């Protein structure tokens, strides 16, 4: 057990810090072309797709270096390394594993160069947590599939050029997983209709997508027909280190502490109230637990030991923390805390009020807390399925 970094690892951290110092101006000083410059530079450093094999344009970055890179980026609140989050997280690795040579050539470089943004078509109405029961239909007709159906809760659908789509190609099979096929679909294909979903915070992160006789060339099928479930499960299993998240959450805790320090309750400084102090400390203990849990799992991964479903532990922590931290800020600041952007008495121009209504993916959608509890109970503790 050793929390020290090797000289090589330390040197890499220094390299990242130096890069950030030289290339990340303060928010106010960023010009209109800042993002394009930034993306080009991190691409040049090999930090987009850092862990990907060199043959695909990555850097073969090791797990510890990845962790260092994510941690420093999060600390500096830097923009993302590449614009296609889904492309880097699911689509790229999926194509590298299951794609044809033509697909690799066509799609991978554009992801790394931030030229193409991807979204994912997994969830459907009425099948939130139950991915295997999808109904969106693809029928093979010669050299293309004809897709009809609906997807929902798709993040970033409005600005993505491509979607990785789970479709049902067979309704006959007994086991429902076997009739699923994965297609790569251009979002500008005729017959695709994107309808943004407004959430309770008034934002439109998600969308419904309707597919009406959309033609998808067979060459854009990822994996064999009927292998869609396997392709997806392997993508979902591609768990990532959560260290960037933890750094962000420590950052959020710092802003909460600053808020506490300048807030009065019942005419007294909130920072002297043992209950407020204790709440902040519980947040800190949970975030720190996520950090050291994450490092233990990272060590396992580095050693090549199999992770079962331990990452669900951090997902549960994060789900409750995301809601509790925002709600704590709202509660702390009383009637001021209710005001939104532009309110005369709004707290930090309503950021906490807004974020308390902007629940992240980890709370809603496919990974609801009760599902995570089932995963832990069944896969780790060996309890019987529902």
């Amino acid at each position: 057990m050793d929390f020290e970094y090797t000289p090589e690892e330390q040197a890499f951290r220094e390299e990242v810090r130096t890069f950030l110092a030289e290339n990340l101006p303060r928010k106010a000083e960023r010009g209109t072309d800042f993002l394009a410059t930034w993306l080009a530079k991190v691409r040049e450093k090999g930090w987009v797709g850092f862990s990907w094999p060199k043959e695909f344009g990555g850097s073969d970055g090791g797990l510890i270096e990845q962790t260092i890179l994510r941690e420093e980026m999060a600390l500096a609140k830097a923009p993302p390394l590449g614009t296609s989050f889904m492309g880097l997280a699911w689509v790229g690795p999926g194509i590298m594993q299951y794609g044809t040579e033509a697909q690799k050539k066509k799609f991978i470089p554009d992801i790394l160069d931030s030229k193409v943004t991807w979204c994912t078509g997994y969830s459907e109405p009425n099948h939130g947590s139950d991915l295997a029961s999808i109904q969106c239909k693809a029928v093979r007709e010669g050299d293309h599939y004809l897709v009809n159906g609906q997807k929902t809760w798709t993040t970033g659908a409005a600005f993505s050029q491509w979607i990785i789509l789970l479709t049902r190609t067979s309704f006959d099979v007994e086991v429902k997983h076997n009739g699923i096929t994965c297609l790569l679909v251009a979002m500008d294909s005729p017959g695709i209709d994107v309808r943004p979903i407004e959430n309770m915070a008034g934002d439109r992160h998600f969308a419904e997508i309707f597919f009406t006789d959309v033609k998808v060339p067979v060459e854009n099928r990822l994996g064999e027909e009927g292998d869609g479930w396997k392709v997806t499960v392997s993508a979902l299993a591609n768990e990532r280190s959560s260290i960037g998240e933890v750094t962000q959450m420590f950052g959020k805790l710092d802003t909460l502490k600053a808020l506490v320090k300048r807030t009065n309750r019942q005419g007294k400084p909130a920072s002297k109230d043992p209950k407020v102090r204790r709440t902040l400390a519980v947040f800190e203990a949970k975030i720190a637990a996520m950090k050291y849990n994450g490092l233990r799992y990272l060590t396992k991964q580095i050693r090549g030991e199999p992770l079962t479903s331990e990452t669900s532990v951090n997902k549960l922590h994060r789900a409750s923390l995301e809601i509790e931290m925002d709600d704590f800020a709202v509660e702390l600041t009383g009637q001021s805390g209710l005001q939104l952007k532009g309110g005369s008495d709004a707290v930090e121009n309503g950021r906490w009020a807004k974020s308390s209504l902007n629940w992240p993916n980890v709370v809603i959608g496919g990974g609801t807390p009760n599902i995570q509890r089932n995963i832990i109970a069944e896969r780790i503790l060996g309890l019987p399925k529902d």
Partner: protein
Amino acid sequence: MNFGFTQEQEMLRDQVRRFMTEACPMSTVRELTAKDAPFSEKLWDQIASLGWLGLIVPEQYGGIGLKWIDLALVLEETARGLSPLPILSQALASAAVLRAGNDEQRANWLPALASGEVRATLALYDEPNWFDAQAVTLTGIPVDDGIELHGRKPFVADAMSSNQLLLAYLGPAGLGLAAIGKSQVKVTEEPSMDVTKPTGSIILDHVQVSADRLMPISPEDLAYLADCGAVAVTAEMVGAADTTLTMTSNYAKERIQFGKPIGQYQGVKHRLADMFVDVESFRSLLYYAAWCIDDAVGELPRAISLAKGYASDAFVRIGIDGVGLHGAIGFTAEYDVQLYLKRSKWSRPMYGDSDYHLDRVATLGGI
């Protein structure tokens, strides 16, 4: 000893529920709140003619002469559908005039409040979370036949739809309430997470208020009115929380996941049972507190602090879990359950959150 409603009260409850369901369903609430300042003259006139605005106003002043327990029942029912009508503000203004007004002021204001002709609101404290006489910082300086108010009053419920504002101030002779016509001040609507609870702030630029529009109050009066406010808000919380529970358990019966209605999983059904325990419990505490206002006012502080102290945290938990148990759909603007989550957050600090009220319970209990 009888802790139940009379037949007349049950009829009143039915009347309110039927009227609100028909005249102010959620589609109407959404229409009204899509506008700048949600208010409907038509609905206001209708509920005025039903007598709900004069419930606690004595008959001699044109009201119905009922009690706070009856008002609590009306507020519970009107809150079921998150009605944005300022019934609560009107009731608090009436309670303030009853408590603090002299005979002339009562005769002057109460009939107009009971008929809905005057629409009024009450604003006590000037700090976002401090419920104490010290938190009344709007200052009045003496002028001929009255005072001059200069400053700002934040957090004024229903300021936009009111034409008269009852504002607490600190004058040379102590605390008081000033009745101010809307045209004398500048009202700013403040954007808030609960659009069904419009709130404004008020700027008073050397506003002259004549003596007949001033009602001196003691710190005890101030505390009494704040306790009435807490009773009114908690009554609305009972109705809104109960509806959240009903919506969520109905959804849990219908929504199928992995081949079963989600309400069959104990992870969902036990949470719903806990919600029921909470709603049932703060409902009982609230009814008792409402009864205390008219029949055992000495017990009011402890009674309402128990009720609001319990309800403030419980309703937010119900709001959050109500949305959470709906899954992703509960999170969308289109779906109604999220409006109840917002109402739960709005209700929490109003007239004291659980930290304030539970600490007061400890103090009143000799700790």
